[in-house]
């Protein structure tokens, strides 16, 4: 892994198991398919607090920002049980 992705990987270590599972598996399975703009949106997304991220990633609501909402959907679709 390159160091930038390693940094993202570490910053996807969160205070909650649910977020660890979804974010880190997305880095393994979906992140490389994002374009540059979407990668920026992903970085914005993981700057949110854990309690803000959780309802997005559990599909309960979506961010108002369209690009971030798209990335949230990518994370949810990429997850494999």
């Amino acid at each position: 892994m390159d160091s930038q992705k390693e940094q993202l990987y570490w910053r996807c270590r969160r205070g909650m198991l649910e977020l660890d599972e979804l974010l880190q598996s997305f880095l393994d399975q979906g992140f490389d398919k994002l374009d540059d703009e979407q990668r920026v949106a992903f970085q914005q997304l993981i700057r949110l607090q854990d309690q803000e991220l959780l309802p997005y990633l559990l599909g309960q609501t979506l961010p108002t920002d369209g690009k971030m909402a798209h990335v949230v959907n990518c994370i949810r679709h990429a997850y494999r049980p």
Partner: protein
Amino acid sequence: MNLECRKFDALVIGAGGGGLRAALQLSQADASVAVVSKVFPTRSHTVAAQGGMNAALANVSPDNWHWHMYDTVKGSDYLGDQDAIEYMCRAASHLVIELEHQGVPFSRLDNGKIYQRPFGGQSQNFGGAQAARTCAAADRTGHAILHTLYQQNIQARTHFFDEYFAIDLLMDKDGFVLGALVLRIETGELLIIEAKTTLLATGGVGRLFRTNTNARINTGDGMAMVLRAGIPLQDMEFFQFHPTGIAGKGMLITEGVRGEGGYLLNGDGERFMERYAPNAKDLASRDVVSRAIAVEVREGRGCGPDKDHVMLKLDHLGSEIIKKRLPGIRDTCITFLHIDPVEQPIPVFPTAHYTMGGIPTNRYGQVVVPVKQSPEEPIPGLYAVGECACVSVHGANRLGGNSLLDIVVFGRAAGNHIIEFLRENRYHRPMQNAQDSIDRALARLARWEQRREGETVDELRKELQKTMEFYCGVFRTRDVLEQGVKKMLEIEQRVAQATLRDHSQVFNTARIEALELENLVDTGLATVVSALAREESRGAHSREDFPERDDQRWLKHSLYYQEQNRLDYKPVRIKPLTVESFPPKPRVY
């Protein structure tokens, strides 16, 4: 090797609620404080605590701290130290109000007072009617407390070292702790943080088990640092499991599902709880349901290709009830299993939740060890609070709502004691007298750099977690635990020969994960060795071959030393501070 060195009055390792509460007390008293955290502080696991914080405010039902104390002693199955429990329960109301003044938005009643909800194990009048004792900020109490404490620390000018990983404690020849060796994750650089006092607040070690509810950061780092410094861990055999987590993943499926009418099925489609608890069935207590699931799986009646879980069926409740009353559970299942519980059952297995054991401390947060005739002599300069510590207010089993209370009460108490210690110890002790411990920590790091071939960290961690789950989970017998000790000793040897997949310096998460794996090995051995020795069933430690509590032989705390996997014991502090002791009696709810 010349290492960069920074000096502070106090070093706090871990930035969850316990560490931040202690740091705040110190910074407000004008001590210079460094907080080291391997992740950004508000991503500590305190953020996941949803339930709330117990305090006998009596806003909803009649209540007082003495009833809270009784419930906590009884909940601990009489292994809790009654002086520390009295101290905690007395302090609770004051600290809830203090948190509110600091900015925690506790939910309110219509009359404006703080709302309190009932929780299991809470009673009025020493075992009478249900009490409502848990204060909550909606379902995000931990988050609210953590953020408030972080902001207060920023205001008080606490110095944060974010994304630094603590490697080991530095101890001089006289046994004083002088700080820690830490690693800056971003660059791979090492740094000595020299401090007159060091406080460990690194949280629990739920990652020991394959199925657990904990964030991936919970790898027992502080506990393992203490073991490597020659200090024992206390009561590590006591680990709280929740009966229904998503199998193999750990996310909690609340009891509410069974409360609404959901029930468990084994691989034969049998509703097996009827055999274990003919009356309560699926609503039997957590430990009974957890053990029943483990027995079904061990006896070959599990579900799935590996027969390693059971099913929680709730589709018969109907889509309307599930969507209305259990929406969060449905979202969790759809997200992590891609199944809708409206149509399909949920694969579940007992999930590891909370570490009752930990670093032995007194109620001032001082780390204490037996020395000659005294069972509890403080290690000068070393403190611990929160889930990594064992003070011991939870004893053999923690009550819901007592963990947030524990971190706030003892974080503050430790901060106050450190302030006194700093008044009497005005100067840093010479670091050259701790050179041996620096060399040992550097040698441990160097070993990982030297090996270029061997098993990988990921494989070994998975094997460790499976081993701990199968041989030291909820189903425990002498035979099973003996095999567990043997297998964990083998894993220890294999980890000593394992290799890093990446040797670079910048954001090398592989190196951090390797060091975390070593911490899991150290704390895992402490857990399984302590569990093998304790030949009784008490609280969360349940032995099929010793099904009763045995106060004659076992009303005592275990102390595990890493050297030769040795065990020692010390008495439970039965005498409270001011009130009569609660003597052990059968624990019936």
